């Protein structure tokens, strides 16, 4: 008797042609990929379970043989069970492939390990299958066949046969529903696929030959029981049909999930970008008062950051992309402004509560402010920029503070009376929440500090205490304020 995962090997040239045919016939929608991948997942689990089931059946079948046969039969029992035990050990190595390197350490085991690895997920015959096949034939013929063990009571003989056939059943069933049948990379040939249909009856005929009452002892097993065992492989068709239905269902689910994911991604891009783009478009279209160039630039940068946010949200399947920490804002903004300071960038330092996860409002404010303030600093030829964020401002704890300091060019004279326009807009917006924009020049650094509060009832996340919980450098005394509603 012979079985394994498929039928004998074919010539390499044939396999090459088949592989090419499989690639050519591959459906554009990758349904076959989904089927194959699902079958691999399922087969891996089924083979692992099957190893333990067969080990249990094999062990159980050995019990009646060892318990009731005379001591003189012991060497024969051991010799008969040995090939099957080796086959099972290899099957374990096959199914628990992470353990194969252990096997490879044994002397001369290299070719065997290579063989076991090479036949994975292919419809072919392998060493473990062959050994198990020979082994279970020898084990079954301990109870029936031409030369069964003598002296066993009929019920023990019947039980031994039943356990061996159950073992057989499990192994052949796994060959019938093996992932190799669905392979897209090494697709089985037409001949193999036809053979698959004949596995149940062929297996039944082999069982007839194995269980045939070749001897008087073998005839002790009830004929009706033998008939039922030999017909049992026909149930493979039912299991095969159920397995195929599960695979088809997996394709349906994958297609539906794929469509849903596409739909959700499209909706996410739409909902995340539409607002900022429409605000920009509406502002640009405005006639009275005419749009302010600084604010236009600020809005368009926000759109660019929004695109990066949308991309990252879809990649990470993050449901709440419009949230994060100051550091995350920086990481999304940095690629957009990198070109502006390429070649002269020396330092950008983040400090304070930059890792606190912000509320959606604070996140969006930081995004807009940081892009404005960073661009202003870079336009002023800054080489060093410091970004500092505090959830609670030292001076007014009800406000949070974002301070961007740079060593770029000084503000032009009279800036205090003629504030920078983008800052003026931000100052109006932050003023609604008790804050505003302050600009301070200490001679070496130019500090722009934005402060804002939040509506009543909204609770901001409070940062965890830092180990070195000392106050950050206080803002120097204002010498020059360009816009001042704040502290």
């Amino acid at each position: 008797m012979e079985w394994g995962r498929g039928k004998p090997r074919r010539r390499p040239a044939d396999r090459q042609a088949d592989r090419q045919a499989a690639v050519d016939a591959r459906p554009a929608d990758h349904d076959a990929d989904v089927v194959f991948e699902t079958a691999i997942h399922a087969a891996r689990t089924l083979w692992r379970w099957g190893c333990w089931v067969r080990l249990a059946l094999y062990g159980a079948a050995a019990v009646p043989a060892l318990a009731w046969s005379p001591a003189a039969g012991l060497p024969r029992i051991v010799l008969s069970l040995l090939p099957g035990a080796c086959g099972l050990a290899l099957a374990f190595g096959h199914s628990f492939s992470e353990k194969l390197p252990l096997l490879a350490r044994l002397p001369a085991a290299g070719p065997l390990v290579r063989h076991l690895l090479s036949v994975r997920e292919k419809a072919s015959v392998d060493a473990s299958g062959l050994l198990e096949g020979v082994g279970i034939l020898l084990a079954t013929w301990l109870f029936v066949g031409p030369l069964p063990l003598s002296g066993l009571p009929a019920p023990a003989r019947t039980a031994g046969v039943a356990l061996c056939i159950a073992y057989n059943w499990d192994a052949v069933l796994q060959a019938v529903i093996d992932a190799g049948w669905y392979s897209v990379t090494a697709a089985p040939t037409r001949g193999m696929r036809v053979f698959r249909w004949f596995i149940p009856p062929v297996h039944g005929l082999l069982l007839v030959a194995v269980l045939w009452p070749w001897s008087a002892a073998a005839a002790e097993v009830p004929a009706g029981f033998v008939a039922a065992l030999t017909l049992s492989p026909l149930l493979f068709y039912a299991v095969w049909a159920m397995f195929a239905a599960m695979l088809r269902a997996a394709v349906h689910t994958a297609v539906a999930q794929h469509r849903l994911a596409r739909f959700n991604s499209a909706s996410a891009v739409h909902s995340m970008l539409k607002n900022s783009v429409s605000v920009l478009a509406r502002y640009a279209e405005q006639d009275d008062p005419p749009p302010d160039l600084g604010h236009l630039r600020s809005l368009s940068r926000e759109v660019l950051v929004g695109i990066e946010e949308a991309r990252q949200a879809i990649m990470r399947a993050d449901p709440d992309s419009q949230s994060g920490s100051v550091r995350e804002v920086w990481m999304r903004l940095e690629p957009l402004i990198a070109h502006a300071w390429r070649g002269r960038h020396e330092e950008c330092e983040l400090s304070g509560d930059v890792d606190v996860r912000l509320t959606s409002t604070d996140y969006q404010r930081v995004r807009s402010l940081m892009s404005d303030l960073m661009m202003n600093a870079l336009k002023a030829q800054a080489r060093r920029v410091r970004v500092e964020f505090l959830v609670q401002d030292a001076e007014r704890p009800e406000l949070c503070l974002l301070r961007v300091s740079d060593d770029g060019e000084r503000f032009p004279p009279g800036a205090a009376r003629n504030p920078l326009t983008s800052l003026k807009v931000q100052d109006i917006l932050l003023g609604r929440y008790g804050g505003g924009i302050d600009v301070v020049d200490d001679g070496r650094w130019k500090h722009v500090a934005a402060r804002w509060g939040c509506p009543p009832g909204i609770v901001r996340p409070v940062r965890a205490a830092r180990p070195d919980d000392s106050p950050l450098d206080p803002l120097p005394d204002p010498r020059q304020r360009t816009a001042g509603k704040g502290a």
Partner: protein
Amino acid sequence: MRIIVVDDAVAAEDSLALALATAPAPADGRAHQVMGVRSPRELRQLLAVDRGFQLAMVDLDFGPGSPETGLVALRLLDEAGIPCVVWCADIDENRGLLLLAAFHYFEPWALASKAGPIADVTGLVAAMEQGLRPGRGLAERYRPARGGSGPSLLERLVGSTTQLDIWRALTVFSSRPEVAARAKVAESTLDRFLQDRYAPMREAEHRLVGASPDLEPRTDERNRARIAPLHAFAVRHANFFRDGEVEQIVRGRYRRGPAPGTGTAAR
């Protein structure tokens, strides 16, 4: 006037605040005060401590970060007695049913489009400040017809929790046995659903996106042919059918009586 903007985008609130800050001062000389929250959850927190708003501008969709839609915000504002204007991108095809529900179960004063110029919104604010009720305008398409009788379009689309379960199953599945299994209904129930909901679905398509009414099904059209368009409709409006507030509405929490002006939709 104190205005609360309920919108996931800060930019929406900011654009209104900026437009009102640069517009001519209101008649009483007091500047408008614009405040914003990002979601119905934040609105709930705000209203717990401050209800002194004279107008709310409400978006209907708060992005993937909020499981609640604008219907929750409208209910909270309704309970607080704050007049609302729905301010959303009305051109989005997947907002249609939410808009229908907003105008059917609540009484927003108007619909303002985010696609339109901000002057439309500031004009609306100025009119409402003078106590003027805005005309039907953009909201016309979504308001229930006055003086009608019988169930409205929305009620004919989703009249019971079983129907809502089937719609939810249809957002994922497109074959009868699967939909029936997912919604835990008998196929005969599903067949009745397919037969009875097809016409309201076509009517909604016609009303919301102007789909051709020539596509009305023949009465002998088989359910197998009906399921594909119903599935497509369910997918398009998945955010509506999966909304927790819609489920509450369907359970009868906000079912409105046959008062004038709330009777039925156009037919």
